[in-house]
């Protein structure tokens, strides 16, 4: 599409040595930090709020607004404030944060220090999934360089501002990407979610006010502080300003991470950026925002643009984390859904009965269906299970497991009932849309 494709988050990607302080600084790193150190914390928050930036971890909550939920100092009872960067990146189909840190660790460090200053935190933690050991090593090196240059630590650049930044390595648990589970894990507990409220902004790590933000969110903050809210709002759509990293995988010719303005037409992402489908293939379905969001049909793909509002209006799905998984006509959707449910059954933390029992049960029905051993009644049980897990659990994981099931069954019922040897029953479609 003929829109400008500014490179905000990927500006330094591809420059040899972009992960070193010298090269990053040659190409503008830490300009935003110098500016932020001259600004009052409330003014930094105000700029981020005015930019309309929404969290890139999946929920799309306005970042500046979240920061204002931290209670003012007089109401904190002497408790410190923490910033935690979520680099757990475990949602199937999502692989952007790894590249962000690998190619430009200083942009994240800069974003952490700026955000910490805005919310009044003196310590920031970057929680990386356990498998990212090699990414953590590079980030630790970058942190050591930044610390030695006085950009992180005590009295940053002589400003009197103190912000320490530490990395923390998880150990293999998808659920630790959920913010309350992540904080439990950071505290040295089992990584189990907690009921909200209280929200972390009020009572988070060590029961202190804590802001959790995704890697991409904090990197965008860096750009926004340097270039201003208006420049950011000039990109993307009115309700979803800025650019987003789309992680494209599956049956396409050029999988990879693409930075594009929000509101980019989905079909053009698929055909122009990703090089289209493999020769002779046709599109069967797309999962637009990581494995947890509802699936989309080709007709929906044709009408949607890549932003929070359009995807939801057109298909009832979500932009999520930007994990764009493309499936062509060879894909067996029963097998694909069984694959995803194995993931959820494996990763449920086990605290809530509907989620713990339900995910395993849904997986077992799907394996039987895949192997031609299930009946029409089993498919009804499958839908009931999904409907009874959604919104009935401590954390959003339950819904994340239910939404793929509900949407596959609603949008592609023929494939499922055919496996049970019957046609789609007359009463199926209206009931399915009632959810």
């Amino acid at each position: 599409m003929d829109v400008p494709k500014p490179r905000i988050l990927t500006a330094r990607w591809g420059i040899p040595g972009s992960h070193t302080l010298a090269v990053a600084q040659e190409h503008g790193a830490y300009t935003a930090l110098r500016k932020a150190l001259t600004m009052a914390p409330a003014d930094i928050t105000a700029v981020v709020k005015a930019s309309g930036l929404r969290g890139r971890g999946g929920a799309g909550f306005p970042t500046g607004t979240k920061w204002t939920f931290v209670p003012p100092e007089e109401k904190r009872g002497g408790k410190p404030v923490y910033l935690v960067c979520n680099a757990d990146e475990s949602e199937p189909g999502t692989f952007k944060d790894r590249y962000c840190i690998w190619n430009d660790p200083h942009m994240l460090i800069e974003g952490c220090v700026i955000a910490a200053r805005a919310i009044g935190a003196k310590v920031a933690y970057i929680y990386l999934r356990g498998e990212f050991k090699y990414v953590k090593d590079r980030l630790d090196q970058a942190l050591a360089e930044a610390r030695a240059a006085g950009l992180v630590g005590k009295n940053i650049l002589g400003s009197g501002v103190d912000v320490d930044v530490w990395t923390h390595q998880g150990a293999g648990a998808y659920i630790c990407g959920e913010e309350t589970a992540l904080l439990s894990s950071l505290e040295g507990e089992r990584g189990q979610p907690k009921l909200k409220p209280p929200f972390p902004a009020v009572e988070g790590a060590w029961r202190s006010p804590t802001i959790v933000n995704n890697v991409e969110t904090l990197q965008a903050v860096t750009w926004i502080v340097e270039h201003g809210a208006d420049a950011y709002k000039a990109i993307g759509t009115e309700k979803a300003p800025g650019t987003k990293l789309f992680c494209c995988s599956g049956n396409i010719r050029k999988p990879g991470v693409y930075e594009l303005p929000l509101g980019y037409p989905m079909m053009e992402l698929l055909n122009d950026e990703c090089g289209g489908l493999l020769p002779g293939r046709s599109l069967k379905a797309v999962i637009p925002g990581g494995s947890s969001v509802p699936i989309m049909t080709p007709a929906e793909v044709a009408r949607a643009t890549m932003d929070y509002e359009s995807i939801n209006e057109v298909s009832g799905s979500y932009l999520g984390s930007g994990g764009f998984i493309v499936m062509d006509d060879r894909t067996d959707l029963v097998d694909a859904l069984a694959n995803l449910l194995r993931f959820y059954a494996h990763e449920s933390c086990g605290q809530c009965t509907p989620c713990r029992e339900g995910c395993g049960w849904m997986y077992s029905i799907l394996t039987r269906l895949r192997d031609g051993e299930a009946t029409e009644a089993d498919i009804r049980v499958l839908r009931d299970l999904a409907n009874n897990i959604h919104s009935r659990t401590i954390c959003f994981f339950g819904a994340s497991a239910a939404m793929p099931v509900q949407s596959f069954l609603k949008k592609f019922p023929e494939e499922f009932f055919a496996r049970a040897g019957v046609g789609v029953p007359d009463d199926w479609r209206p009931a399915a849309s009632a959810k």
Partner: protein
Amino acid sequence: MAAFPQPPAQGHGPVDWSDQDRAEIAELMTHYPTQRAALLPILWLAQRKWGWLSFDVMRRVAQTVDLPPSEVYSVATFYTMLKKQPTGKYLIQVCHTLSCKLAGADRIVEHIKDRLGIEEGQTTPDGMFTLMRVECLASCGSAPMMQIDDDFFEQLTPESIDRILDGLAKGEPLPLPRPEVDKWTFQSLES
């Protein structure tokens, strides 16, 4: 659910930290407001040092962070990457979640099984390789992929797997297939 649900079969006997470990642990503890928060980093340190987390190792860690051993065991069993059983010298973990599956992960697993003559979850008789399937490792755009120890190997083919495993069997160090800085989108997969 833990990948290694069984309690450890054997142990290490009494174990202790070196002076260098103690210094590293003391430094780690300065990062956090509580001692307990250093538990996960210390378990990682212990696993690197002793290979896996036996009861003996977990008891040592419990003393270090001043927690009952049962608490340490409760945390360690939550995380799949913390080994409650020994594995081969190299742990091969092939991702089989959706994007990798679409790119042929099952064939990759079959190839490795044939080559090593083991089933998933088993270790080769010479103790060199353990094979496992794992869930999404955030490399879906460069699928199919596997992780060996701390390294990612992406856009796998049977030939590239043979090259990597041959090298390891000969005692060569792991090659460094980490993403190149300028390679943030990938080659056409048509071929």
